[in-house]
């Protein structure tokens, strides 16, 4: 591009400027103030010249804007604002129009109409707002981000009928894995892991902050969220040092804006399980049972009676599972918000309601949320931000009846899955079946007056005062207080099953947990731009403290199921219990960010944390990080060489982060209470040494290295980002129970032992374009994560098979959460086959045809020794951590229609269905269709059946159920997670009804998946039977704005 200088005025062929030009312009302007260019003297040549001056400021912040390009419309005469935002321009026509342009701001035209002073407030453009990324203790322009920060904004996440925010993040961002293991109303949140699983000890959960205060994804109304930022690498997360090792998720709620907008969002959806197990009919069960026991436990006449259903009271065919999942789920939500305010007082007020009806009767969840966010400019230097939010929720579920132990809806589902169809549900005279375990079945429990009710009230107040004593400096004080009262009331009603079987001992248990969290934070931030140097220095202090109090009581023998409060229980055998816990963390932190011309970027962070969870000498630790970036695309040579590359940034960061997600009292040596024992007629208080504690326990730390390229092509029509990361965790706070011999005689508390490495690649590829009325975008993300145990420390035992590890769960060089067991080669087909195979009597004493044929991998000489045994022949057989995760977002708009599809999946992951789900006839359990179809058939022996020979299995298993690759499933899947079609009413119709937006949409969640998992089971479910299905939901919704 050419730059034309004429008479001290700057003429440009185009009004649009690139940042590089801008920076050069600023530099030139700076020079002009040193009077090298004397503008006034140069104006003399021109006739009828009028000098117009003014100041350009930012509309929102009021800050002066340097480098704003000012052009007299229709001419090439131009000027730039100086560092104080002032400008001066000479016009020949007093009625000229000035055009103000500045990157990231809306272009503004001002008619002079004879005026000689024109102050302008520039308004940030919407596109530019999106370019701002929320980072720790502040925001930054996306172009200046050096770390790995992923952000989704409200548009991406709204209109998804989910109660937990975690589920909208699934597949949206590279390196962020969300696994949903349950669809239970109110408890369907996904497990979030950022860049693999960082620790086999301390909980590898990300730190979740809502407006700077720790919180949970399950309590916040999705429509209140402005943005969600995930800080993945060390440089961006290090400001949260002590708790940042597994990533930080920053949730920012919406703020008030000038001009009143009222929005309403509502939806109604119907859900069904994604997968439904197919269980045996009663006669099928009876037939297969006979095969399993090898004798006629059910006679041919009995089986005929089951088949004919002529006497269903005595020979029933009960569909326990169908009865339990008796209805479709309903998900509905309504949300109303008001955004508005004037200059100095802005507000956002919202109220939300969510109702989620479960598939099982008496199972539902409802939540009411409210939020008020206020921003008040108390003076031109003082701003107060007040955030008040609260929620009331109630989760209900059925439970078992009197004389049974307390069971949740998942456990009722487990018994429904487990109990064979030959057991009576309810007889024609109304009597209930006692079930195989006595005490009833899902039929009697669901019909009873038993209940579990969990009301929770949460409220939080978050105040922030920002004070600008001088220009460039902001001092802030933040105070937060959150409290929650979570209650569980579980009542197991008395019930008459039959005239002779009565379950009398009604029991009420009431548990109250209250927690109070308080925090205060002080921040000082200095930011200054001068001569292309952009410096931002932050210092801060934070203190957090939480107290939890638990209290619970129990009474039995309630005379009536209609009066279920404590005082109505019997006076004998009352129990009360209670406990308090407390933790605190204190931190000092600082950050320096610097860039030169937005071309060379640097960042340095240091945090010093002290936690109550560590002993006095080990309380404090320091977490540093460094990052550097180079925006190659800002270099002139680059622009000239490859003009079609619109953005190219190289970045690297390094840092150390901490983790303290462990119990509150890990180092204090104690005697555990509650070890009571009866002497005589009373019970004596007892305590005992039960846990080994490491008195020298200290922080777990993770060193993170991150290298990345961000690029954009053809004016951002195509983007490609690639990141490599390496997270190395040491001093893992592990409870090495399975790495310590039981001869120790006590449990073991966390101790610093072991190292884990997570490394991987993250790719993002996107394309967006507009063709006339049609615009579309495709965003794909793909992550590869390799998880590897580097050492266990304690538990590094040389195993006879050559692996080094604790012999059961962790081995050096293998991923955590791995499966360890035998490799198999189908099943034995005949007695001869058994004789020819290696001797596996140390695994399967007395093998029979149809038993799993385990492979002889090694022996004392390092080669197969003809014997299969636990010491030499077990090995790595799969990982529960997905190696590949990917997501693909497709969206398109055409005139009034919008469409979006979201496809997501994981690969390179193993799953396991165990116990009542994996094995037929386990502990009075039934059999599933896939087991019947796939079982070994002695009459037609097959080498590789889906299921070995049938046998009766107790809760400790059999030689066929020991861990082996026979049972390991490929849990990879591709899921059409969300599909949405919307229609926005045309403006002319809306104007007539004074609406600004009205959009209706149809959405389908978890619509369809491709996988090779077991028939009837969702690949995200790893269960032994106590589960809640993942749901497909079809929703109709509406978005309205006034």
């Amino acid at each position: 591009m050419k730059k034309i200088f004429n008479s001290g005025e700057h003429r440009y062929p185009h009004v649009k400027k690139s940042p590089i030009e801008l920076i050069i312009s600023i530099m030139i302007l700076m020079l002009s103030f040193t009077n090298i260019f004397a503008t006034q003297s140069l104006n003399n040549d021109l006739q009828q010249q009028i000098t117009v001056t003014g100041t350009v400021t930012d509309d929102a912040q009021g800050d002066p804007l340097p480098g704003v390009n000012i052009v007299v419309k229709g001419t090439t005469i131009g000027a730039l604002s100086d560092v104080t935002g002032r400008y001066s321009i000479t016009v020949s026509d007093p009625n000229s129009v000035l055009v103000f342009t500045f990157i990231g701001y809306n272009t503004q035209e001002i008619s002079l109409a004879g005026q000689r002073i024109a102050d302008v407030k520039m308004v940030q453009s919407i596109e530019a707002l999106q370019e701002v990324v929320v980072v720790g203790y502040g925001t930054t322009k996306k172009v200046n981000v050096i770390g790995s920060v992923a952000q989704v904004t409200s548009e991406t996440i709204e209109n998804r009928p989910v109660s937990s925010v975690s589920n909208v993040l699934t597949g949206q961002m590279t390196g962020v894995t969300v696994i949903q293991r349950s669809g239970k109303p109110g408890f369907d949140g996904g497990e979030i892991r950022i860049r693999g699983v960082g620790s086999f000890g301390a909980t590898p959960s990300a730190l979740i902050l809502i407006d700077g205060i720790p919180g949970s994804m399950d309590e916040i109304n999705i429509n209140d969220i402005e943005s969600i930022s995930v800080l993945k690498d060390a440089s961006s997360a290090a400001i949260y040092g002590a708790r940042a090792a597994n990533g930080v998720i920053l949730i920012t709620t919406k703020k008030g804006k000038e001009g009143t907008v009222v929005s309403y969002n509502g939806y109604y959806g119907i859900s069904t399980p994604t997968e439904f197990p197919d269980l045996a009919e009663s006669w099928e069960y009876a037939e297969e049972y006979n095969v399993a026991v090898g004798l006629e436990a059910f006679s041919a006449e009995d089986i005929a009676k089951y088949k004919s259903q002529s006497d269903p009271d005595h020979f029933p065919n009960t569909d326990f599972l169908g009865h339990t999942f008796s209805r479709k789920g309903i998900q509905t939500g309504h949300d109303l918000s008001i955004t508005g305010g004037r200059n100095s007082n802005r507000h956002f007020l919202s109220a939300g309601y969510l109702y989620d009806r479960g598939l099982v009767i008496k199972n539902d969840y409802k939540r009411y949320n409210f939020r008020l966010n206020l921003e008040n400019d108390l003076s031109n230097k003082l701003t107060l931000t007040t955030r008040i939010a609260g929620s009331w929720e109630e989760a209900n579920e059925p439970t078992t009846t009197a004389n049974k132990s307390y069971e949740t809806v998942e456990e009722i589902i487990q018994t429904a899955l487990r109990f064979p169809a030959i057991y009576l549900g309810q007889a024609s005279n109304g009597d209930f079946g006692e079930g195989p375990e006595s005490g009833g079945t899902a039929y009697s429990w669901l019909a009873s007056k038993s209940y579990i009710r969990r009301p929770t009230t949460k409220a939080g107040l978050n105040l922030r005062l920002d004070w600008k004593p001088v220009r460039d400096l902001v001092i802030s004080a933040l105070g937060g207080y959150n409290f929650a009262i979570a209650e569980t009331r579980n009542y197991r009603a008395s019930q008459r099953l039959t005239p002779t079987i009565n379950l009398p001992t009604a029991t009420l248990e009431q548990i109250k947990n209250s927690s109070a969290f308080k925090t205060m934070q002080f921040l000082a931030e200095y930011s200054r731009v001068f001569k292309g140097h952009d410096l931002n220095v932050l210092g801060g202090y934070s203190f957090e403290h939480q107290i939890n109090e638990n209290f619970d009581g129990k009474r039995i023998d309630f005379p009536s199921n209609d009066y279920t409060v404590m005082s109505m229980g019997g006076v004998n055998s009352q129990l009360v219990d209670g406990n308090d816990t407390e933790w605190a963390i204190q931190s000092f932190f600082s950050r320096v960010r610097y860039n030169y011309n937005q071309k060379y970027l640097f960042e340095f962070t240091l945090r010093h944390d002290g936690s109550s969870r560590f002993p006095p000498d080990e309380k404090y630790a320091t977490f540093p990080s460094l990052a550097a970036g180079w925006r190659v695309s800002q270099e002139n040579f680059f622009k000239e060489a490859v003009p079609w590359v619109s953005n190219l940034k190289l970045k690297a960061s390094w840092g150390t982060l901490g983790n303290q997600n462990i119990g509150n009292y890990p180092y204090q040596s104690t005697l555990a209470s509650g070890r009571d024992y009866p002497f005589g007629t009373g019970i004596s208080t007892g305590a005992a040494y039960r846990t080994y504690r490491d008195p020298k326990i200290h922080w777990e730390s993770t060193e993170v290295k991150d290298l990345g390229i961000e690029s954009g092509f053809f004016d951002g029509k195509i983007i490609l980002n690639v990141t490599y990361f390496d997270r190395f965790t040491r001093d893992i706070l592990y409870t090495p129970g399975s790495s310590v011999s039981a001869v120790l005689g006590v449990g073991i508390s966390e101790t610093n032992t072991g190292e884990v490495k997570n490394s991987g690649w993250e790719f993002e590829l996107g394309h967006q374009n507009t063709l006339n009325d049609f615009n579309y975008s495709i965003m794909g993300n793909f992550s590869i994560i390799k998880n590897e145990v580097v050492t266990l420390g304690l538990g590094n035992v040389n195993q006879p098979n050559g692996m080094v590890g604790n012999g059961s769960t962790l081995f050096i060089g293998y991923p955590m959460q791995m499966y360890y067991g035998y490799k198999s080669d189908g099943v034995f087909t005949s007695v001869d086959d058994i004789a020819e195979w290696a001797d596996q009597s140390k695994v399967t004493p007395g093998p029979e045809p149809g038993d799993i044929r385990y492979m002889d991998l090694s022996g004392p000489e390092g080669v197969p020794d003809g014997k299969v045994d636990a010491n030499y022949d077990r090995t790595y057989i799969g990982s529960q951590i997905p190696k590949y995760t990917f997501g693909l977002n497709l969206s398109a708009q055409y005139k009034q229609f919008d469409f979006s599809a979201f496809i997501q999946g994981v690969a390179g992951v193993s799953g396991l269905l165990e116990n009542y789900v994996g094995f037929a006839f386990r502990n009075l359990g039934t059999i599933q269709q896939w087991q019947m179809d796939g079982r070994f058939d002695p009459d037609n022996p097959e080498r590789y059946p889906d299921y070995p020979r049938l046998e009766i299995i107790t809760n400790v298993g059999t030689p066929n159920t020991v861990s082996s690759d026979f049972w390991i499933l490929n849990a990879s899947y591709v899921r059409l997670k969300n599909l949405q079609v919307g229609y926005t009413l045309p403006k002319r119709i809306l104007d007539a009804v004074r609406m600004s937006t009205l959009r209706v949409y149809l959405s389908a969640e978890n619509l369809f998946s491709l996988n090779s998992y077991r028939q009837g089971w969702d690949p995200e479910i790893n269960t032994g039977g106590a589960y809640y299905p993942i749901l497909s939901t079809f929703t109709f919704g509406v978005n309205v704005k006034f």
Partner: protein
Amino acid sequence: MKTHRKVNNMIAGSLLLLILIGISSCSKELEQYPNNQFAKETFWTNESNAMIALTGVYRGNIVFNGTQVNPSDWWCYAGLILFEHATDNAFDRRGKNAAQNRLTNGTLLPDNAILGTLWNGSYIRIAICNDFLENIEPVEMDETTKKRMIAEVRFIRAAQYFYLSQFWGAVPLVTKTLTPNEANEQTKTPKADIVSFVIDELTEAAVDLPRCKDIPGSEFGRAPKQVALAFLGRIYMAEKRFTEASGVYKQIIDFGDNIIDPDYESIFNTSNETSAEIIFSVQYAAELAANGLTQHALPANKSGWHLVNPLENLAIEYDFSDGTPFSYSDPRFNSHNMGENRDPRFAASFLYDGRVFGGNVYDCHPDHASSIDQLTYSKQATRTGYGLRKFFDEDFSGSLLTGYGGNIPIIRYAEVLLSYLEAELEGGKPITQELLDMTINKIRQRESVQMPVINVTDPALLRPILRKERRIELALEGIRYWDLLRWGMLGEVMQGDFWGASFPDAIKTGSKTDPTGNKRWWVDNKAFRTGQDEVWPIPQSEQDINPNLRD
């Protein structure tokens, strides 16, 4: 402008003050101690805390208020009564793959769940005992009380090593608190050393323990001198040191503190569980520390799970009431009321077809399909035609999981008497009628039993009589496996087919025809591997983590 500056200065001042106050007041919250546990440094200071710790030693790893199939401790219903499933006395309803059954049916493997839980339970108690013994010395308290407490703890620790030595032989001998690294490097101590440790510890513990008669009712459940001696007797018996065994048993007898209770049935339930016959028992208490055996073993008509199924092999040991051996062909055998005309201990121990128990008729006839307790291979009901009667209070109607507080005996005086006779017999001492009368006949002549006296003094003839008496008297109390082990009879006994009750009039029969023609219900078959299964393998999980524990 001036006021503005003032305001700003005030704000700045108060903000700074707030920051200073805030930061300075926070450090104390960083010092936290749990308040639901006792800090070790301040705990060992007085007698009442020592008593709290002693209570924790007695609790060991016992689980209350729930069911348990794999025993977490030797001294709980699963460690005692369910252990009978590994013998010819009873059968686990869950069938051949049940862990207890697999101890003796020829499929014992190092990953058997019971090996793991019993091993862990032993070392848990040992660690609690070691901690107690390491900390009790400096506590300022009454010296006699302290000595008694130390003796109790040493007895309990020695009892763990008694069990370990009997079933595993060579195991790590841990007598002090270990660190995790030390635990992972333990080696096996030879069985002989474990045995002599047990003998020494029990001998010394017995000195400081009070006698049964000196323990007040409020302390019932704490170890008396007699129990240390009785365990000493047990290990001498196992070691075939019969003279020493006789000596310790004679000591207990000579104390005269214990009795043979007139009523056999009631000493096993809540009505008479503190009888002077009970030397030591696991203490349970309703609702607070309940015994889950009710849920596990009551019949289905009482909403129980009927886990314990006595075998016919045991049932036929009970003679007719006149002392003649049981026979199916005898007209006194009544398949509809098998307790009729039998040794009264039969009815006190078993449920059988037609028996009225707790107001319900126990109907286990294989033809009675409508009965919840029908004998089948599929229902959650009997697999043998018998159920467990012993240990239950017939009138109990509370919660099966949390409502029953009946104790389970560990050592009864009856065992002491029978063991004394056995020690005399095996030790080659002359058998006199007087000896018989003070031992076996005292038991047979119990007021509620009244079986004819034994007058066989020929050792070879007396031995089977004594062993049969011992099996009947101590039936289902968890001692049979150890008896068979020390008699070297496991391999001989745990073989071939096992049967249930005889139902001469039944149409439905078991899946194998009874070769004796008595229409007994077939239960299972076993193939104990003699020479291999007598010594339990060290749990696989322990072998995985400590190579020293591998073979």
